[in-house]
């Protein structure tokens, strides 16, 4: 049972299992364990980014190709659902149509980029995706009458997901079960399902070929696998998953805009999450995303304290200023690429990983 759910890919480390279980339970019961709007927002963001980072790991960790266009697909998902809801009003059908349209656009785009760049040389891919993603960001902000430009679009979601909706008359464990909590569980369930699907993909024969390509693409080609085909399909799969993550984000935030979905800063966040969590293992995505987002919210407060405590010393207060938290994570990123390229998960698994 468990084997088929996890596709036979177990955490293979007691500590890792414990951490993953803690994260799972924490996220599953988040609305009841951590009351308050900020906490549930953090939990939803973690769910969304687990999907996004897992889909990116499919490319970076499993296939060994670096893409900088992942936020573009995330954005396509967000804009697809967001603009559909904004234009046609709030209903489930509209969400479905929005997701389908976004999937179509995203996967087609991923296919075209893959066809253009993966065929020539893998290293082109990083540069070309960077260029395409920048162009897409500019297009999305420029065509403001359609996309809302820099301001993005706010829209309403179906009645059931709104804060005003009450599922139960009485509070459950002291928490009022309103539409926001339903929306959270929608996001949570979608994240769990998508994560398990990704786990299924990487542990399928197809996933094994991807890993073979990562290790030695010439050899994979020589063994009779069309490398271009596998890379392109992986690219399309990752793009499709990112589109769905974007749709989840739009439904949760009830807003879509360049800063929340398309910006290059998010791309860097994803990279940091994958590498710190552990490339080439989907559990790394869970750990990386959770750690990063918790750090983003709470490390800054800690750094504020450190900055205030070291006031008067030269330079140090500036180095630990709350706005400089990316500096610490950047250094951590560089160090982890050198010293533990398999990330936290690889460390926990030890040599066997």
């Amino acid at each position, binding site marked *: 049972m468990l084997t088929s759910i996890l596709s036979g890919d177990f955490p293979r480390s007691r500590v890792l299992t414990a951490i993953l279980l803690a994260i799972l339970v924490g996220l599953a019961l988040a609305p009841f364990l951590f009351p308050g709007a900020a906490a549930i927002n953090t939990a939803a963001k973690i769910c969304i980014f687990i999907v996004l980072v897992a889909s990116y790991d499919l490319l970076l960790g499993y296939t060994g190709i670096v893409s900088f266009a992942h936020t573009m697909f995330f954005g396509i998902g967000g804009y697809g659902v967001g603009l559909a809801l904004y234009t046609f009003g709030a209903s489930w059908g509209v969400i479905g149509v929005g997701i389908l349209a976004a999937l179509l656009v995203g996967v087609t785009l991923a296919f075209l980029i893959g066809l253009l760049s993966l065929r020539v040389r893998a290293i082109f891919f990083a540069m070309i995706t960077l*260029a395409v993603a920048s*162009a897409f960001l500019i297009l999305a902000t*420029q*065509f403001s009458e359609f996309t809302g430009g820099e301001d993005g679009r706010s829209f309403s979601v179906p009645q059931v997901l709104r804060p005003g909706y009450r599922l139960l008359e009485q509070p459950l464990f002291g928490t009022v079960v309103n539409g926001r909590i339903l929306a959270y569980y929608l996001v949570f369930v979608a994240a769990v399902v998508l994560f398990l699907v990704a786990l299924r993909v990487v542990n399928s024969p197809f996933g094994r070929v991807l890993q073979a390509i990562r290790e030695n693409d010439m050899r994979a080609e020589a063994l009779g696998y069309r490398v271009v085909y596998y890379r392109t399909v992986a690219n399309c799969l990752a793009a499709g998953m990112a589109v769905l993550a974007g749709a989840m984000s739009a439904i949760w935030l009830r807003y879509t805009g360049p800063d929340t979905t398309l910006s290059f800063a998010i791309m860097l966040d994803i990279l940091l999450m994958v590498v710190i969590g552990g490339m080439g293992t989907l559990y790394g995505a869970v750990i990386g995303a959770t750690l990063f987002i918790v750090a983003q919210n709470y490390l800054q407060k800690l750094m504020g304290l450190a900055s205030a405590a070291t006031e008067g010393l030269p330079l140090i207060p500036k180095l630990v200023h709350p706005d400089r938290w990316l500096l610490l994570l950047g250094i951590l990123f560089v160090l982890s*690429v050198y010293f533990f390229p398999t990330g936290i998960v690889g460390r926990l698994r030890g040599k066997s990983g």
Partner: protein
Amino acid sequence: MTAVPASSSDTLPTLKHDWLPILLPIVLSAIALPFIGNVTTWVTLTVAALAMGMMIFVIASGLTLVFGLMDVLNFGHGAFIAVGAYMALSVLGLLSGWVQVDSLGWNLLALGLAVSVAMVGTGLLGWAFERIIVKPVYGQHLKQILITMGGLIVAEQLIHVIWGGDQKAMALPTALRGAIVIGDFAIERFRILAVVVGLVVFATMLLVLNRTRIGLLIRAGVENAEMVEALGYRIRRLFVGVFVAGSALAGLGGVLWALYRETLTAAIGGDIMVLVFIVIIIGGLGSVGGCFIGAILVAMMANYTAFLLPKVALASNILLMVAILMWRPQGLYPVAKR
């Protein structure tokens, strides 16, 4: 040994030079003329494109050589652009007297000093970057991309720490402001300076690459690094030199680019790096000549479309890249290896 083959003659066989790509910028500007419809505007745009192209070329040339020579793709190149620009900002701030006086000589002296400081600074930074960041990951593309990206994040954050995060104004020296009017055409002075600097860099680079021993080794290294090593040259030392020179050039380009935009933020490198990547892909990774033509093409496309269809300026350059890759999948001037 028998006699020398009969066909040998006194002259060495030379490669036929490939002129087609050189025609591209001319064709592109000729196509743009009827769409723009106004010769004065067209001249202004073309000069602006040339100036911008030169700046992109100065930045991109180092990157493309580093890639060609050692197969290292440095995504952190943008950091040198930003650091160079900020260093020049500091120097120009110290020399504000020389900058504000309306004399070309003093202005150029101040600018020259600022550029020298920026180039030395970014050169040193490049040396450290090569030692600390790039050296451990030779031959591993994936790690190179990740690690240089990490270096870029750290460098940008350090700029925030040292110079502060707010947007800075980068004032042009007094004598370089405004435009020279020749007949109907107004040409901004700074653009002329940028074109001159770009051409000087290009000419120097061609001279060094084609007429000196070091240049010969670099070109040989780009073609086949292992063979050069086997012949007893230390290609690593050569590579560090090229990396430092490329970083210094990025610093120079950063100063020019910041002066051109007249504002400065820590993210300045990121904005132009997208164009730089398009340029080195178009030119053929590792080719200086292709990089030069690619830079002019990209800048022309950017300027013409910014005037004609401002919303799709960057997208048009992607279309340009796609078109060129369809024509020559390895770029305008493919470099032999790989």
